[in-house]
């Protein structure tokens, strides 16, 4: 019968209407983001509240669009002081390559997605400013310290002494 498809279609829309809406009343209701969701880049801090960043510049090199920039001053005792770690969120594409590149887990992709600002100048801001960078050695406890080529090779473990002791 001509028209059967039309009537079936109308039954389908009525059925869907009676199922109820599926929308979420944002901003009164907000959905929870999955753990891996990548939104604004944010710095991480250790238990004492100090930033984990060691100013190694790996993230600066990793970013495809050159959004991150780090101004750092080095003191005489080789410790670094981060002057300004700027981040252009207006141009960031949230690819996460900077977070993947960081060897110290010093930055993470936060779940902050309400990023609209009225003034375009606010779209470039500092992730860290005027803080001491963390020393590189402290933040990498699991990694083996690389042998310095200038130093002599480390001493062979004292096995002969043990054998001598066992022989005795």
């Amino acid at each position, binding site marked *: 019968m001509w028209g059967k498809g039309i009537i079936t*279609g*109308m039954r389908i829309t*009525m059925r869907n*209407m009676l199922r109820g809406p599926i*929308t979420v009343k944002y901003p009164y209701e907000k959905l929870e983001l999955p753990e891996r969701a990548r939104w604004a880049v944010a710095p991480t801090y250790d238990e004492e509240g100090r930033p984990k960043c060691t100013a190694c510049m790996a993230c600066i090199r990793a970013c495809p669009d050159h959004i991150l920039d780090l101004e750092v001053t080095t003191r005489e005792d080789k410790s670094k002081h981060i002057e300004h770690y700027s981040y252009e969120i207006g141009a960031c594409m949230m690819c996460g390559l900077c977070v993947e590149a960081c060897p110290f887990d010093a930055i993470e992709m936060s779940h902050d997605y309400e990023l609209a600002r009225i003034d375009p100048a606010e779209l470039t801001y500092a992730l860290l400013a005027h803080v001491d960078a963390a020393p590189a050695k402290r933040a990498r406890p699991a990694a083996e310290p690389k042998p310095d080529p200038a130093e002599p090779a480390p001493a062979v473990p004292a096995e002969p002494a043990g054998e001598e002791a066992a022989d005795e």
Partner: protein
Amino acid sequence: MSAVLSATPPVLAAIGLMLVNGVVLIYMLRKVLGHLHLRLGPMHVGPKGIVQTTADVLKLLSKEDIKPNGVDRWMYVLAPVIVFVPSLMAYAALPFSETLRITRLDTGLLYTFAVLSLVPLGVIMAGWSSANKYALIGALRAAAQQVAYEVPLLLSVLPVVMIVGSLDLGEIVAFQTGVWMGVVPRWFVLLLLPSFVIFMISALCELNQTPFDMSEAESELVSGFATEYSSMKFGLIFLSEFSNSFVISALAVTLFFGGWTLPFVPESILVPIAPIVFVTKTYIGIFVFMWIRGTLPRVRIDHLMNLGWKWLIPTSLAWLMLVGVVVKLVAPGGVG
């Protein structure tokens, strides 16, 4: 003078009804379409978004009234008026109850159809006078469509007139009171189903509603013939469209669904609530229009013309002849 004075309250009532109707229908449309599409529609302005249409009307009133360069000035200004005024006039013969009407017309049905057929004129004027190719295409499509479907619209209701013997809408409703065999209401939709189907299809074409909304095909022509209109001129065109859908639905209810009567309810209860029954039935009809609007795709203009000229007109003529023969055979002395 007293004739003018005594005619003023009904006219004001008609205007009031039209405006209230517009407000309610716009909200209803957005809510119904929203729920058909798994979303909520307006929710913000007022509880459940009830005040939304008022806000929209205030916004329309406060908009700048743009007159684009190159439009034909008088036609541009006059076109919304010609679209709007016939819609208002069409309320005149609708029977809200036995006694409650704007005016009692012996030729109510003919008058309503005649007045509604002025609306395409306004549409063509609107499209032609806007200096816009899309508006022109929309207007010409509307011209072809609405003018073509006037014929089946009227032809399909002639069987009703033949059986009742009068063009007065009140008489048509009165004929449909009561039940057959104790169960089946005497509504014409059951007796003359093909008439109803043809009427519905032609009505959707007259109203420029999906699936026949080529003249305002949003995905092709943005707003069709009304593209270049802003502020209250657009408001008038818009309002007239919703008002037309009320009128056509009311006509369908009057002609086919018994108007303000209900089959099993005694007169004493029915008479005070008759207008409410009438308006409720009309709104159910409008809901069905919106349901169709939210579901069906658009018909192409040449398919539409084929449907109208090659299918609906011959069918309605054949049906008219059949009903005429049957009426003559069954009730040779004329039906009451």
